Each structure stands twice: as structure tokens, then as C-alpha cells.
């Protein structure tokens, strides 16, 4: 191999490698990097979307905190009635199926029927239900007055409250 050939081969090979390296870097700069940057931007946008979804769930947080501060077991309506209207006949109570909330919470529902009761006692009972911890909420109420001044009435009442499921039960 002559000297000039040797130089040509050495420089040529190196130049080929250099060209390949430059081509590679050029490809990275022109094609690969923009595509990667676009993917990165897409991932960041997805993370922001997750943040927005989380904000949507944040509005429930105060309720969960409020529930966590309670015993998790709402008092029995019959007991509340007995407390606010001692001596008066109690309601007929029928429990319906529980609806799952975020574990371990569920919505407990009960239907109360009074054949005849004093409307004043009913007001006190509903107030006691609202201030219980966790509170009972009257979701539906039917009242039929039994006298002209509506001091006595036949009442049907649907109550619901959040209750913590006992440990070991499936939500």
C-alpha cells in the first residue's frame, strides 16, 4: 500500500465515521429529538390531565374528612325517637339494601312509618336525625294530617346515612 493510498484510506475511513456520526447526531437533532420532545410534552399533558381528574375528586374530600371524624355508626332512628319523644309510640322501621360508597363507607337507608304521631315530636325527631354523627338525612317524607290543625298526623319517612361497613365485609 502506497503512502498516499494509506492516507486516503485512513482519512477516508475516519471521514466516513465522522460523517456517520454527524449524520447520526443530525438525525437525533432533526428527527429523533423533536419526536421525543413531542412525546415528553404529551406525557406532561397527560400528567396535567390526571391532576385535573384529581381536582374533580377533591370536592369529596371534606365529606370524607367529616365522616372520618365520626364513629362511623349512625344511631338507630328508634333510639333517637325514644330520646326526643319518650312515652310516645315508636315508628315501624324497615331497612332497605345498603349502597356502597368509597370503601369502607356505605349508604344505609331506613323507612319509618308512624300510624299516628304528634307533628311537634316529628320536628324534634328530624332535628335530632340531622345533628346525629354521622347524620341521618330525610330523603322523602309523606305526612297526612289527622286533625284540622295538623297537630297529629300519619307519617311515612325515608332516612339515609353514611355508615362504615364492619371490618371483614365486602363493600
Amino acid at each position, binding site marked *: 500500500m502506497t503512502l498516499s493510498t494509506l492516507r486516503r484510506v485512513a482519512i477516508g475511513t475516519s471521514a466516513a*465515521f*465522522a460523517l456517520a456520526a454527524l449524520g447520526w447526531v443530525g438525525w437525533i437533532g432533526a428527527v429523533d429529538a423533536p419526536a421525543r420532545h413531542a412525546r415528553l410534552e404529551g406525557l406532561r399533558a397527560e400528567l396535567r390531565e390526571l391532576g385535573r381528574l384529581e381536582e*374533580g375528586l377533591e370536592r369529596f374530600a371534606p365529606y370524607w374528612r367529616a365522616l372520618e371524624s365520626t364513629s362511623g355508626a349512625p344511631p338507630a332512628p328508634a333510639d333517637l325517637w325514644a330520646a326526643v319523644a319518650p312515652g310516645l309510640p315508636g315508628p315501624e322501621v324497615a331497612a332497605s339494601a345498603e349502597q356502597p360508597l368509597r370503601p369502607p363507607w356505605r349508604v344505609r337507608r331506613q323507612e319509618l312509618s308512624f300510624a299516628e304521631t304528634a307533628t311537634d315530636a316529628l320536628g324534634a325527631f328530624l332535628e335530632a336525625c340531622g345533628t346525629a354523627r354521622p347524620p341521618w338525612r330525610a330523603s322523602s317524607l309523606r305526612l297526612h294530617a289527622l286533625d284540622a290543625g295538623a297537630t297529629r298526623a300519619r307519617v311515612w319517612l325515608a332516612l339515609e346515612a353514611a355508615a362504615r361497613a364492619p371490618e371483614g365485609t365486602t363493600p
Partner: protein
Amino acid sequence: MQTVPMRTRISYGVDIGAHGGVCVRAVRDWRGRVQTTLLHRADGGIAEAIRSDLRPGRAALVCAAVSATDTAIRRLKVPFASRRRARKVLPSLLDVQLPFRLEDAVAAFPEVRLDGGNVVGLGVACPLDAAWRRLEDLAAKGLDPEILDCEALAAWESAAREGPPADGAARIVVHATPERWLLAIGDARGLETVLTLRNPPPDDNAIPGEGEPTALRRLRAAAVVARGEAGRAVEWAWLGRPAAYVARWRDRAMGEPALAGRLVPVEAPEAALARALAVRALEGSAWAANLRRGRLAHRGWMRCQQREAVRAAAALLAAAALVASVGAVHRWRLGREEAALRDRLAREAARLGGLARVQPGFEVRMAREAVERSRAEWAPVERLFQPGPAAVLAGLLRAATQAGASFHTVEITDRVVNIEGSGPSRDSPRALGDLLRLLGREVRLVTCEAPSPEGRWSFTLEGRQP
């Protein structure tokens, strides 16, 4: 023009023959100026003088010349406008003008320039056996020059350094030694042709000597060639050695009416050729005319060239590796950032959606579906904390008491309020309707056209959540 491959600032020009020798050292300073010094003037001992002059560890070029009697110099003209294309045909053009075969010679083209629409070149060729012989002579004296320059070119340049030929004038540079005479003829455009005298007059202080008629005849012939048909003025430059021999023959020739012309003063004519060789070696022009090429190439120079090639290739590879590494690191960092983001996205989606496993690429979709399920499932908890029918009933009872109205039946859910009752006047239930409107219900109130026998007005009130 070839660049000087060795990064040296020192060169030695050696003009050596059977009748003595001269060595000149040229040094290029940091400003690029070349300074020359006469190092040695004797037949032998040049190699030793160079070795003792050169400090250990310093590199230097040695430049000698091949005799003009052994070289052929031809001016070539190619009707091409491209020097690159012209270079391809110059060897063929030179070959047909040589008295020997180009394959048996070593050739160089130290000058290739554009002249109008043509390319003008200067071809130099020396038979291989003559070049070998010259190298062997030099080797016998302990010299192994990196550059074997052309004597005629160096002689012409040594005179040109004293000042270029006047416009329209021809110049004859005579390099005279008792061995041979060299007559380089040209003008302001450069060297045109070379005449030699193989058997010059001896250095015996005799004028005229035995060779005198031949020498004068050759000088006259050169003058005729130089003047040409235009009868140009001739400038004479005399150099050679020994100095007394040159001075004697210069004075003799200049006394001839046929050789009249301006005499170009040459500083230290004895060392002029060696000086030109040394300077040409440093400035690079000697490399273009270097006849040590191909099989005659200097081993050290070849090694140097190889080293330079390897160094250049290594530098190129290193630069390529650096560039590639920067690219690779950038790519790796982007890849790592992407992986970290994907990992974080999967973790966030799993946490938010309460998912055990998230399929890559579907993180947001799976999390959104899970969140929507959760929101639908959790929605009742909001309702549990809202005021219910009890509050509505309390408000209605207060309003009814104030209006003197009484209820017969009341039905309240989150969406609907239905009341049947009676009041002391037709307008008494209006207050109840206003209350329901304040609670955001659409109200429909129906009152009887006439009161009951007890004087009470029955009504039906409906409030519906829009």
C-alpha cells in the same frame, strides 16, 4: 502546493559537489520570517556540522538538489480552464517532451497556474538512476535529505529573491562551478528554460582556459535565447562556487559585447544556491518540486506522513466520537426523562384510579374511567350532607302558621313538594309558594274558586325541582 508535513522551523540547504560544498541554515521565527546563516563551507563535514548544530530533540529538514544536468525542465501549456483537469494530462504532455521514459523517471509539477483560458505548468523530471546516484553520493557524505530539490529552480529563485526581473527584460541566472554550469533563462513570469554546460572551464586561475570558448559560446547561446525575437534586454545573475571562480568568469563574460546586460547583484553568491534550498524547504515551494517521491521517498518523511495521517484520522475519529457522544448523552437524557415521566404517569394513574395495574399507553383513559366510576359511586355522599325535606318541612310549617294555613297532606322528596291544605283566605297559600320559589322550585298553586262552608279556602301547591 504541498504543505510542509513536518512542523519544523529549521532547515538546512546543502549545495554539495565534487569541488566543495556549502551548507546554510534557515530558521523561521515566531513571526514567520526566515533568517539564514552560512553554517559550513567545506567539501566534507557537512553532515557532522548539521548534527552538531542541531540541538537534541529538535527536528530539521535537510534539502539538497539534483544536478541540472540530470534533470529536464519543460514549460507545458494545457488548453483547460481547470487546474485539476490539467494536472491529469500534464504527465502525458511531459512524457512526450522528455529524452527518457517517464516511467523510468521521477517527475514533479511545481508550478501549475491559470493563464488566461489555459493552464500553464512547469514539469521537472529526473531519471530514476540519476536520482538514486545523487542520493547515494549524498549518503556517502552522511546526508539523507528529506527533499531533493531541482537545482535550476533553486538557482532561479535565489536570483529572484534579489529582485524580480524588470518588465520586458529577460534574465539569465548562471550557477557556475568547476563541475558544471547551469544557465536558467526566464523573465518576470518565471523560469522558461535551462541550459547546462557539462564540461566547464576548470578552476585553475587561467583565463582563457581550455573550456573558455565552449563556456562563452554557451553564454552567447543563452543570451540569444533570452533576447528572443523581440531583442529583450538581458539581466545577468552570477552565483556558484568557489567565489573567486565565479567572480573571474562573471567579469570575463560581462566584458563581452555580445553578453552585455544589467548585472543583478547577488549577496554571497557562493552560498546562494544552498540558501535558496534551505528557504524553499521552509516555505514549502521545495516540497512541490521534491523529487524524493514514490520509490525514492524519504523513510523518515514517510513515517512522518503516516504519523500525520494517523493523527489526522485519530483527530477526526475523536471529533466524531465526541460529537456522537454528545448526541448519545442528549438522547440518553431525553430517554431517561421519558421513562421517568411514563413511570410517574403509571403510578399517578394507579393511585388516582385505585388500580392495581395500568396498561402502558392507556394510563389517562383508565384513570379517567376509574375516576368517573368513583364520582358516580361517591355522589350520594354529597347529598347526605345537603339539607333535606326536613328543613323544607320546617320552613313550610313556619310559613303556614304565620298565614293561618293548615296542611292536609304533605309529600316532600328531593325533587318534588306536594301540599294539600286550606287557608283563611284565597291568598293565604301565596306565602308558601314564595318560599318554594326561594328554594328554587317551579311552583304551581291551585286554589278553589269558593271557600268551604267553614270559610276556608282549599288549595293544592306543587313545587318541582327544575
